């Protein structure tokens, strides 16, 4: 199908983009890579009279290290850019690897990180890892700029903390210590993950695990029992030893996740996947 007709606006600056949204209100949608929005417009699931294309807005571009070494990923960065960017590959190889495995090459080349976050489709990869990494998003709107932790950004299916008139400017990630490793493992029989698990393992004192499961629920969920069990582990365990001591806690976390049977799999199956994928992600961090 073809989309319903719309006016296309192509602002050159953030201020211009925000003003267009104020002028056209609910009749306008922001647009970047199109991998979600254009598909929904074609299916007539969504309909807008005005599409505001953000691709020429310089403030949303680029990947850089801030003066304090915070990694700043502009909202327009595509999955392919993130996968291959020297800063991401060096500082966050686990996140670069995740980006290299998003959907297919055409989606990676077109789809932007800002877009996938703002669309709020639960069956996405990046939100899980960004929650585990304790990233935060920068939002700009008519009332100014604010920051929201990634963990609080996703409120439910297709619902985020972004106000309708705000634009996601960047995703920021604090510098990782040298003893920190991250890994993401996902499984699904469609292009979207049925379940994905992200682990961030820090061997610095104190030892710390950040473990999140995504896609299984309407928003990424923390596997808190496993995180707590990890903080009590002795130093120096190898990957297998570590996993043996954590898997019961992970299974208990998985069993408590609110989920349901759907196209991606039965609820029990998806909870089972959480354990399997958590094991793989944790072992990948340690070995």
């Amino acid at each position, binding site marked *: *199908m*073809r*989309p*319903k*007709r*719309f*006016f*296309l606006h192509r602002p050159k600056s953030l201020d211009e983009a925000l003003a267009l949204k104020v002028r056209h209100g609910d009749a306008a949608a922001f647009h970047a890579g*199109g*991998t979600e929005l*254009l*598909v929904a*417009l*074609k299916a007539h699931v969504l*309909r807008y*009279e005005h*599409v505001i*294309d953000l*691709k020429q807005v310089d403030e949303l571009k680029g990947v850089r290290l801030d003066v304090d070494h915070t990694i700043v990923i502009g909202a327009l960065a595509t999955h392919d850019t993130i996968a291959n960017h020297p800063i991401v590959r060096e500082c966050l190889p686990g996140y670069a690897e995740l980006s290299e495995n998003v*959907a*297919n*090459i*055409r*989606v990676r*080349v*077109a789809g932007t990180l800002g877009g996938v976050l703002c669309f709020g489709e639960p069956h996405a990869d990046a939100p899980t890892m960004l929650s585990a990494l304790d990233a935060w998003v920068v939002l700009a709107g008519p009332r100014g700029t604010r920051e929201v932790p990634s963990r609080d950004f996703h409120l439910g299916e297709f619902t985020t903390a972004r106000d309708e008139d705000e634009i996601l400017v960047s995703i920021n990630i604090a510098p990782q210590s040298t003893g920190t490793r991250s890994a993401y493992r996902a499984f699904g029989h469609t*292009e979207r993950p049925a379940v994905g698990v992200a682990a961030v393992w820090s061997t610095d004192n104190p030892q710390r695990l950040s473990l999140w499961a995504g896609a299984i629920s309407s928003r990424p969920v923390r596997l808190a029992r496993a995180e707590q069990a990890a903080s009590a582990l002795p130093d120096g365990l190898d990957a297998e030893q570590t996993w043996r001591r954590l898997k019961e806690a992970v299974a208990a976390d998985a069993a408590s996740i609110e989920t349901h049977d759907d196209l991606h799999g039965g609820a029990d199956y998806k909870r089972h996947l959480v354990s399997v994928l958590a094991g793989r992600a944790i072992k990948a961090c340690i070995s």
Partner: protein
Amino acid sequence: MSHIDQEIPLIRVDFKLNGAHASVEVEPCEMLIDVLRDRLHLKGTKRSCDVQVCGACTVLVDGKPTSSCTTLCADAQDREVTTIEGLAQGNQLDPVQRAFIAHGALQCGFCTPGMILAVKSMLARYANPSEETVRHYLRGNICRCTGYVKILEAIMDLVHNPSKYQ
């Protein structure tokens, strides 16, 4: 009832298409695939899933594999678009096309234009890809006939013996 009553201004899009200059006037909501197939009569680009999953509509935009079904034609402004019709030099087929023919790497042929353009972009990125890299890169190009074996054979033979297909 009409969705929008006002007239929507057409957008003039100038771009390079298969090496030549192209200029079209389009509605903002028009997709690249529709302009290529219905206005410019380049029927090699195929529509199938229409949701950026199958790869049949793949074209190259500035060398990057792009789902023309989910790309606004307006976004082609000042870009270089390559379709399957643009690969051959006169009667001389592209090495990727020659390798596919030599290995019988197609049956119905519907996925073939997208598959071949995806391979072109892959070889521009990776000079000597492993089979694992090829499988990963082509994950988003679906073929319902061949079982992929001959496609992989054609590509790996082209990678290992490029002079055979010059």
